Each structure stands twice: as structure tokens, then as C-alpha cells.
């Protein structure tokens, strides 16, 4: 189990993390989700031992590792830009963690066998003799993953693992990583600013903003029951209606009368729904509505009445 206790970190005058507490169960897949500057990467680097907290502690299975560097924490870290060693072949990259061992170094044959096994695991068998420069982005990502797994880490940390990939590759790799996690059961934490990624992959999502944790919960919880206005806006889309009501676009229905009058500005097809953009007449406030595509959409210029089906109020 990973326990993070009251971590605070400053960079000069800038408060990057403030009083962070978090517990992670063995085998969990955790997403640190937040906008840039929320402190998510700093937190990941502190858990790794690449960065050190100003105060607070990090425990791995009850062991206080707060003062230990990354080399002693036995974690696998996958860098955003992969940080593959470009003068080494793919197989040498994967074997690096084993071949630099000073004690209990496996034999050359064992190291080679282990590297081959890992390359098979990440579906890159046969590419061991290539150089990183000869691989695609998605392949490099998997080499980085295999290299991190080679040292049999007790924890896998991934910094924006899909950030540098194009949309299609990202989606495939996402599904693949989820399956791999299920198969290996290795406790994993990844950083992302993409809420879709976090909701799809993680067992639990940690939503961060301005160096604090706003909410920790299952994807279902952070989406359906956001704890703060920030979470509500950052995870999924939210309309802020007059009198401080927060409502998702798909939780709004169009009614015959008795609703809030909205002037329709724009209507377009968004996947399986109509996305309607309108303005609340009296408040000059923009509102987005998703309407089942089987219904007839209102035309731009029309005025309709809307009613929220499901709302959230936040005590400010």
C-alpha cells in the first residue's frame, strides 16, 4: 500500500503542493487528473523520489521512503518523452536496469531472455535490434514501459503516458495498457490532463487543482457526484445555470412550458446526439444541451423552454 501524508512542496515562491494526503491500495490503477499547474506531475515525481517534498512523508507498505532517492525506491517510471537511450538498441534499453545491477546481476543469457520476454509482453518481439529512432511513437512508448517493468518494480508511475501520441494510437494504447494492468495487477499511477483518459482507465481518479486534491473517487463518483464546482467543470461538461445550479448537457430536457426560456444559437450533430448551443434569455448566459438524435432538433433562432433533470448545488 502507498500512503502519502501531508505533502507540501514549494518551488521558490510558488506553492506546488499543499497538504496532500492519499492512500493507494495494492493493485489499484490511479489517475492523477488536473490542468497544467495543478501539481499532478510534481506529486508523481515525489512519489517516485525524483523530487523531494518540503514536508510530509511517503510510505511504501509501511516503510518510510521519504528520504530515499528514486534509485532506492524500486519504482518503474515512464517519462512523458519516454527518455529512451538513443544510442542503445531496443533490447539494450529494456535490459539496462538489469545490466547495471551491481549485486545479484543475472547472467547475460538470463538478461537477454528477460528482455525478450518483456518485448513479447509489449508486443514488440522481433524489434529488439532496432534503435529508438527507428520506431513509431506508440512503439517507443511500449519500449519505455518494458524498460520500466524489467526491474520488477513494486509501483509503476507514468507521466502523461499518451500525451505525445496521435488520437488513434492513443486510443489503442489506452485499451492495451488497461488490459496489461489487469493481467499484471501492478499498482500503477498515471498523470493526465485528459478527463476521458482518466475516466476510462483508472480504478480511482484523483482530481487536483492548484496544488490540492479536490476529490478522490471512482470514475462514476467524480462524474456523477463532483465534490466541488471545479471537479464538475473539469470532469465532463457542465452548465452553470442562474442561481448557482450545475447541470450536465445531457441532463437537460426541452419541455413544452414552465421551463427556462433559451434562445437557440447553433445546432450540430455530435456523435449520437444533437448538441444545441443557446443563450438563456434573461441572463445572457451560454448553455449547452445534448438532445437525443432521434428527436427533432429545434432550429437556430427559435426559443425553447428547458428544465434540468439532475442538478448539483455546491455550498460555496
Amino acid at each position, binding site marked *: 500500500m502507498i500512503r502519502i501524508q501531508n505533502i507540501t512542496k514549494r518551488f521558490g515562491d510558488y506553492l506546488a503542493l499543499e497538504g496532500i494526503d492519499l492512500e493507494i491500495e495494492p493493485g489499484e490503477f490511479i489517475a492523477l487528473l488536473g490542468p497544467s499547474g495543478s501539481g499532478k506531475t510534481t506529486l508523481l515525481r515525489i512519489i517516485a523520489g*525524483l523530487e523531494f517534498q518540503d514536508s510530509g512523508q511517503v510510505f511504501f507498505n509501511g516503510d518510510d521512503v521519504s528520504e530515499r*532517492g*528514486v534509485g532506492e525506491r524500486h*519504482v518503474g517510471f515512464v517519462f512523458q518523452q519516454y527518455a529512451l537511450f*538513443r544510442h542503445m538498441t531496443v533490447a539494450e534499453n529494456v535490459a539496462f536496469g538489469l545490466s547495471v545491477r551491481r549485486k545479484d546481476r543475472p547472467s547475460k543469457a538470463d538478461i537477454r531472455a528477460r528482455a525478450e520476454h518483456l518485448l513479447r509482453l509489449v508486443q514488440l518481439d522481433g524489434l529488439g535490434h532496432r*534503435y529508438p529512432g527507428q520506431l513509431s511513437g506508440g512503439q517507443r512508448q511500449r519500449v519505455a514501459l518494458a524498460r520500466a517493468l524489467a526491474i520488477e518494480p513494486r509501483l509503476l508511475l507514468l507521466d502523461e503516458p499518451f500525451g505525445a501520441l496521435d488520437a488513434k494510437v492513443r486510443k489503442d494504447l489506452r485499451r492495451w495498457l488497461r488490459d496489461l494492468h489487469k493481467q499484471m495487477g501492478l499498482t500503477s499511477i498515471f498523470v493526465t490532463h485528459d478527463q476521458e483518459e482518466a475516466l476510462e482507465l483508472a480504478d480511482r481518479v484523483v482530481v487536483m487543482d492548484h496544488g490540492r486534491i479536490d476529490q478522490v473517487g471512482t470514475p462514476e463518483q467524480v462524474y456523477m457526484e463532483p465534490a466541488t464546482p471545479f471537479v464538475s467543470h473539469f470532469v465532463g461538461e457542465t452548465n452553470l445555470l442562474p442561481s448557482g445550479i450545475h447541470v450536465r448537457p445531457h441532463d437537460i430536457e426541452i419541455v413544452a412550458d414552465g421551463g427556462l426560456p433559451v434562445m437557440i444559437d447553433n445546432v450540430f450533430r455530435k456523435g449520437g446526439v444533437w448538441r444545441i448551443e443557446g443563450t438563456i434569455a434573461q441572463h445572457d448566459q451560454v448553455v449547452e444541451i445534448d438532445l437525443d438524435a432521434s428527436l427533432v432538433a429545434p432550429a437556430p433562432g427559435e426559443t425553447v423552454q428547458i428544465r434540468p433533470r439532475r442538478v448539483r448545488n455546491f455550498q460555496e
Partner: protein
Amino acid sequence: MTRRRTTTEGTAARRLLIALALAFLGFFLLLPLIAVFSEALKQGIGPFLDAVTSDDALSAIRLTLLVAAISVPVNMVFGVAASWAITKFQFPGKSLLITLIDLPFSVSPVVSGLIFVLLFGAHGWFGPWLAEHDVKIIFAVPGIVLATVFITFPFIARELIPLMMEQGKDDEEAAISLGASGWQTFWHVTLPNIRWGLLYGVLLCNARAMGEFGAVSVVSGHIRGETNTMPLHVEILYNEYDFVGAFAVASLLACLALVTLVAKTVLEWRFDIHGSAKH
């Protein structure tokens, strides 16, 4: 289909610029190079060979090689250490260190030589103490080495700092996270990443170490067969109206320059290929 040029004055201006550049290079570089070799070989190959194999010339060549053999490795270690410190760590006084590394570029070489005379000369700060212990620095080989190290130390660091800055520290962090020691990380990750830049710096550093005149002239004392490097030897021969001898030794230095140029071109070519293949 006719393609319109974005600059209509293109052809004429371009030709003029190229002609200007070529004329400039011809006058300042090619002509002197030809002059050096033609003067050296004016009386045939015999006097040329006599001049470069005389005892004094051989001793000057030996001393020049010795000085380069000491100062280049010293600056290699210093350059790598300084660039490593500057690019991978945050510490107070960092910008001051960067400025100090540039100092030899901004100070006249003669002044650099004088600094060492002031420190280690007979009337210098450490002069009496050195005399007492019978250590000779000024007007001896150690002084020449010191002056050369000082003059050439920016070359390697200047080459490596931007390179290492651009590469960042992800690779090093990755190596450490995989359990490598600091030394293993340096040897297996950092050094291969910077090897072409390092070689390039070493090349420039070496060319300057062998060719330095001003600072070395101040601390050398011009003792024939003892403290004369090749550039100093050229000057002495020239002042003695031994033009064939002077140009013969000078032609060796010119050859060094040409070799450096070729090696530099080859390195730049390798460097480029490597640069585009990264990540």
C-alpha cells in the same frame, strides 16, 4: 508554368554577395595559406626538411604536443564537469560560473599571460615561496601549460552547455530510476549522448592549445630548445630573417589547421545525422 521569385533583385544581389564573400575568403584565408607553403618550399624540399627537423624545431614540436597532451584532457574533465553542473543542477552562483567560463574569450591573451606572471613570477604573489622551494613555473613548462589551459578552457564547456541544456535530464533520471549509479549513468547514458559535441570541443580546444601565441609568449621566456612552442619558434626564426625556417614550421601549424577543419566538417556531418535521429 513560370515561378515568380519572391525577391526580384535576387540574381544580381546574390551574385554580388557570393563574389564578395569569396573575394574576402580568398584574400584573408586562401592567399596567406598559399603564401605560407610557397615561402616554405621556396628553396626546395631540402631546406624545408632541414628547418623542420632541426633540434630547436623538433624540441618546439615536442613541447607543443606535450602542452596539448596535458591541457586538452584537463579541459575535457573541467568542461564536462562544468557543463554537467550547470545543466543538471540548480545552485546559487550558476550564472556567475557561466560568465567566468567565458572570461578567457573576453580577456586579451597577453593579459591572461600576465596574470600568471603576477601570480607565479619572481616578484609575484607566490614567487618568493616558489623560489624557496625551487619550483619554476614562469619561464618554464608549467607556466606554458597553465597559460594554455586558461586560454582554452571555454572551448569544450561552451560546446557542451547548450547541447546538454537541450537534452535535459530525463535520460539521466531514467537511468537512475532503473538502478544505475551516478558513474554508470554518466558512462552509459550521458557520455554517449554528448560524444559528438565533446569531440568537436576537443578538436577546437586542441587547435587553440597548439596555436596559442600571446599568453604563452608572456610566460615562456623564449628559451630555445626548452620553452619554445611552435608559434614562438616561428616568431624567433622570422625575427632572425630565416624566412624558409619560419614558414616551414608555420606550414606545419597550417597543416594542423587544415586537418582540424576537415575533422570538424566530418564531425558536423555526423553530429547532424545524429541530431535528427534523436527521440
